[in-house]
């Protein structure tokens, strides 16, 4: 079983006495990640793949080692399937170009997507004339799988969020993979909210492309992951040209480097990769099954508490279909004012539209308050949060 008190000792930010429930936006960092970056700067720093001197050798090896650790974490076939980007958004934008769509090709996405899994496809609709289908929610505020099946007919690409950053709903990727198979579609998964919180196995789930961010999973911000099956990476064209992505250059042509390097032109965020590795190792040492179990336990208490207080929350009522976050609203109060009140109680939550405007429109609301959990949160913190909301409701009258 997960030892929360031991985990909490690893997170220096807790000294501030803040209850941090804004993990879906970004997570805090354990000392192991902070130390890994510090140690790299102090003892091994140099550019990678650029020199034969000792430091460059060490840095290059450490950078590649990071990819091996990440590949294993999501059960990729090889570290060559791991491309480092800046974040999920950048990964999804690149994927939208990698899949090479032409006029009339169909892409299916859903109403619950974060803008980063919506706008790149919307742009292709306007620029290239692709068909864009949006799957709706059913009455339980889950993805309507009948609508999914209908809209996915003959789709070239299905691009779906693994876990909604507003609803907390976890998509049934296995079922969506079946739909993709029926239509011979590529499956793109936005794993920004899932990879940090639940086990994600790209092979078991049959994912063609997966995007996620380091900063939401205890690692540094500024580095993200683009996973793609090796065959897709080999076929795709590089999107940035320059140093590091070629094997040879002539005055009127060039030869591409091997994957994944052909997608990483220029000096990458080396220390970011070092930090991400430490973060993945930290999560692995706990075990993603444990992380998921722990968050489910806490979210159950939180949602039971919200229901008891008569607070409206969004997403499925069936907790098996939810991850560790919940968005809600309190009567006539604006979400930002609720967040301000909680901030006074040293509770950090997110308020607003959470980069999901179409979803909020579909829900008929102009914003929500979101509490999102992680491994360092405790039952006591959830209780304090619920007590604060109780006090607020009493004040509003």
């Amino acid at each position, binding site marked *: 079983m997960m030892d929360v008190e031991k985990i909490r000792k690893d997170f220096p930010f807790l000294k501030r006495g803040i209850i941090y429930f804004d993990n879906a936006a970004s997570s805090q960092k354990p000392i192991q990640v902070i130390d890994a970056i510090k140690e790299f700067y102090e003892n091994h720093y140099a550019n990678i793949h650029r020199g034969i001197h000792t430091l460059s050798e060490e840095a290059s090896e450490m950078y590649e080692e990071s990819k091996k650790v990440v590949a294993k974490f999501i059960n990729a076939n090889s570290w060559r399937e791991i491309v480092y980007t800046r974040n999920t958004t950048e990964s999804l934008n690149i994927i939208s170009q990698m899949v090479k769509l032409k006029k009339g090709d169909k892409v299916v996405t859903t109403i619950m997507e974060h803008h980063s899994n919506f706008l790149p496809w919307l742009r292709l609709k306007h620029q290239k004339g692709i068909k864009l289908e949006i799957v709706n929610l059913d009455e339980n505020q889950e993805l309507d799988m009948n609508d999914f099946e209908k809209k996915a007919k003959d789709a070239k690409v299905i691009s779906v969020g693994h876990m909604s950053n507003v609803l907390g709903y976890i998509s049934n990727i296995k079922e969506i993979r079946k739909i993709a198979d029926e239509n011979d579609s590529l499956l793109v998964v936005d794993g920004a909210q899932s990879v940090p919180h639940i086990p994600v196995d790209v092979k078991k789930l049959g994912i063609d492309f997966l995007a996620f961010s380091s900063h939401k999973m205890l690692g540094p911000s500024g580095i993200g992951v683009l996973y793609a099956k090796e065959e897709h990476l080999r076929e795709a064209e590089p999107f940035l040209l320059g140093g590091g992505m070629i094997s040879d250059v002539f005055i009127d042509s060039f030869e591409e480097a091997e994957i994944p390097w052909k997608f990483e032109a220029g000096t990458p965020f080396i220390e970011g990769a070092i930090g991400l590795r430490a973060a993945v190792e930290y999560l692995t040492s706990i075990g993603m099954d444990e992380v998921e179990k722990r968050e489910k336990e806490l979210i159950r208490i939180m949602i039971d508490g919200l229901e008891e207080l008569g607070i409206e929350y969004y997403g499925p009522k069936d907790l098996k279909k939810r991850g560790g976050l919940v968005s809600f609203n309190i009567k006539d109060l*604006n*979400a*930002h*004012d609720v967040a*301000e*009140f909680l901030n*006074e109680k040293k509770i950090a939550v997110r*308020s*607003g*539209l959470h*980069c999901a*405007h179409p979803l*909020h429109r579909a829900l008929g609301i*102009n*914003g929500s308050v979101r509490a999102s959990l992680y491994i360092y949160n405790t039952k006591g913190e959830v209780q304090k949060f619920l007590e604060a909301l109780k006090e*607020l409701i009493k*004040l*509003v009258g």
Partner: protein
Amino acid sequence: MIEKILKMLKSIKKGKLPSANAIIEKHNSEHCGDWVRLYLKIDEKNNRIENASFEGDGCYLCMVSSDKFIKMIKGKDIKEILSLDEDEYLKKIGFKDISFQRRGCALLSLRAFKEYFGERDA
């Protein structure tokens, strides 16, 4: 603090103005969901705001400041309102100490007004 906010929110008056001859809408660029719609009855001859009201949704800073803005501009010369410096304005409406991140909330109505008349004059 929350008691103060709730009290301020209760005193706000929102609504349309049927006699308005200018309607200005602005959403906060911070994509937080905050928006205001200003209804203005302009005395075109004297370039004066005869009457005004507002509708909108947003955080208390946005709504309270908009309410104060509406009260402040009634009967005022448009040029006079356009000449208001943002810091001076925040001081006038009692929000001079708000954090940097939240300035946009409290300035939304003034900025909407300035954009509209700035563009119209240009």
